[in-house]
């Protein structure tokens, strides 16, 4: 039985190795925050992290995920307080909300490497994630807000270390 490391826990699953990771996460592990949107890597609703990289879980086989660290929306932060999640609430981003787990996971991969992205970098990074409610401008604002919060936090953090 394959073993998965998901949100910091090791869990054994029972599924054929070619099963898309998406369905393993949703059905077997019953973590339904990761959504099915297109099954073809065209919409981004199923985005999760594999070793910190944003991937489409509908296009990732179970075999490809074994031995890697998987993070889903449920594991992005312990209490749903990742700067992006807070910013998403502050900017009142979601409408129907269905795509937003994927949007947040996609954005989190960007901010983990670059907490000072330009608008163009945000658009280039996020363009594969569809939002049928068209909340794009709020998504952009929320990413910028979270990036700013992360920069402030890290500046305060280093000051504290310095003293």
């Amino acid at each position, binding site marked *: 039985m394959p073993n998965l490391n998901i949100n910091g826990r090791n869990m054994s699953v029972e*599924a*054929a190795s070619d*099963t*898309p990771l998406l*369905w393993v996460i*949703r*059905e*077997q592990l*019953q*973590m*339904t*925050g*990761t*959504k*099915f*949107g*297109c*099954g*073809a890597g*065209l*919409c981004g*609703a199923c985005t999760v992290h594999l070793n910190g990289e944003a991937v489409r879980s509908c296009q990732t086989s179970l075999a490809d995920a074994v031995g890697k660290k998987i993070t*889903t*929306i*449920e594991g992005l932060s312990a209490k*749903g307080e990742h700067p992006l*999640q807070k910013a*998403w*609430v502050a900017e*009142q*981003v*979601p*409408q*129907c*909300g*269905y*795509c*937003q*787990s994927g949007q*947040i996971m996609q954005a989190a991969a960007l901010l983990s490497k670059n907490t000072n992205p330009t608008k163009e970098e945000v*658009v*280039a990074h*996020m*363009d594969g*994630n*569809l*939002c*049928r*409610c*068209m*909340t*794009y*401008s*709020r*998504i*952009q604002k929320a990413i910028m807000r979270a990036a700013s919060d992360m920069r402030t936090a890290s500046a305060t953090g280093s000051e504290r270390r310095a003293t």
Partner: protein
Amino acid sequence: MNKHVKNLAPETTDLSRRSFLVGTAATGLVLGYAGSGIDGALAAPAPANFEPSVWYSIAPDGLVTVTCGKADMGQHVASTMAQIVAEELGANWKDMRVQLASNDPKFNDPVLGAQITGGSWSTMMNFDAMSRAGAAGRIALTEAAAASMGVPAGELVVRASTISHPKSKKSMSFAEVVKSGKATKTFTADDLKAIKLKSADQYTMIGVSVPQLDIPLKVNGTAKYGIDVMLPGMVYGALVTPPVRYGATVKSVDDGAAKKVPGFIKAVTLDDKTTTTTGWVVAVANTYANAKKAAAALKIDYDGGPNAKLSSESLFAEAKRLQGLSDSGEFFVKDGDPNAAFGTAAKVLEAEYTTNINIHAPMEPMNATAEFKGDILHIYSGNQFATRSGAIAAGAAGIDPKFVVMHQMWLGGGFGRRLDADMMVPAVQAAKAVGKPVKVIYTRENDMTMDFSRPLTYQKVKAGVDGDGKLVALSHDVVSAWPTQRWGIPDFLSPSVDKKGPLDAFTVNGSDFFYTVPNHYVRAIKNEMAHNATPSGQLRSVAPGWTFWAVESMVDEIAHATGKDPAQLRVELLDGKGKNDGGAQRLRNTLLAAMGLAGYGTKKLPKGEGMGVACVSSQERATASWTACVAHVAVAPSGEVTVKKLTVATDVGTQVNPDGIRAQVEGAALWGMSLALFEKATLKDGGIEQTNFDSYTPLRMSQLPEVAVNVIANGEKATGVGEPAVTVVAPAIGNAVFNAVGARVRGLPITAEAVKAAMKA
């Protein structure tokens, strides 16, 4: 609102004749209309699993839970209903909670008499009832508090879930009053009517952008959509849909290869007496992945049926043929005599406007979970029309609708798609066939090719202008499938003005505009071929999404033909004479607001750029949100259109949640742009050709223009905001393209090829 949607079930709707009860039940205070289930709830001796069966309840901890009978598909309507209740109740927003209603008729819309969410109707039709329910609760709580404190009720102040007596400095929280068990009161229908609601200057909650109650659930993955339902012992169904959108039949199913798929249970060929689906097969297996593998392994032989050779071209050709017949269709508007006026007009313009098939494609693909438990069929699915969908599910099961319980979920997008109930048919029949709960999930390909799409439309508009450049006659023929007629509910159809029989007003709404035109005909013509081949549905903004495309393009053409500024011509036509009094002035003001915000006509734009205007009274004459748009575009020599900015103004009367309204208006405007430029589906050999987001391509972030929204709240009654801004954008863009490069495009979507061709012409 069209007259026909009233009183679908008068016995459950007429709240004006019912008393309102506030009483103590096992879980706290419950509030609702008599005969709505509250009577039973109050009489019941503290059942273990008490389910609040009323509009709202207040628990002993002071939490107020509002039960929303409207589908919440991202418009935050549950939160809006809670906000209206909270205003009059005097509750602290932090104490408000929402839950989604089942299909029990007690949760029917107080005006529509059914559970249906659409038309941008919810806020306007529930505002009064929710306000009175909130006020009744406040009065009952206040009287109980007065008795406890031993002070006159009239001296009490209610604010933020606390009832205080300023003179004695005594106060009680809602929680304390509920725990006292003394807050019981019956309001007769007359009492309720006599409650003096707050005036706008007394509002502390309405008009405030309180945080939407559903948003926290939607950033941490905990909001449960239909697709997230998990039931014990549940198995999964994957669909195989035929190559033809409608009319195919299954001749044979060979499941030999499917049987080799691990976990495969059964292939179920649907026997759909509701005629919602044709030729569908469900492969049932222990997991969805296995169900999909089994579905792919099925070998199915079809008879393509009568529509198997049809294409978008044949539907357009048929529309054109029908329009050319003098006795086609039925009249929706018949003022004066345009045909006579054309004879004496100084100038006559004629044009054809078209729109292609459009697909809803909400991000959550269609799905439903069905479970038979004893006599009861339980359906779990996000749905916009519980009243009808429950009946379809019952029809699929062969049982009476009263045995169906619909469990409402958050909707991963609706846009009108979830008014339909096709997803329930395979879930019900598969659950019946395998004797287990079944969750059926459409693939994106199923979802796109089996959409109840926005119909392909063909419109012919003829306009007559007199010697002074005044528009004196307009005739407008609208040819389309009739989506609402498909529902089979006579009350949703409208009588035609020429008494030829009922017509589907949801194909022509908007054409009865607020411009003063003395001679004006509108014919609604049903394209039977399209109706049968592409069963159509209501797509966000419905008819005004195409009627205003034609009307607002033609008004622009008239302006150019008569040498007038297109915006100025609209202002002249909105003179508020006769039946247009009131609405026309509001629309004129809205247009002027949009023009002001956009800087229309104030600066010279670079070569290849232009601004275009449009203004609309969507959704219906009686329910209009007055909306105007100025689109600023840049057109490349290749014909490619870039939208630089959309400026939208909308008069909504009263705004409950300003931030929520802005979100809806912006989303609607971007839908309008997406339909105007990027979204096109086509029929070929009876099937929809586009299958996923590579070939059907809604707007993405990189295509986002600047959007400026101006919401006008002038104290009139609250109107809807989910749809109207969709309808105003396509004509504004089309008119801007003409203004930029002189290319008139009359078909949606506006493609680079079409613009380039029109530039040469």
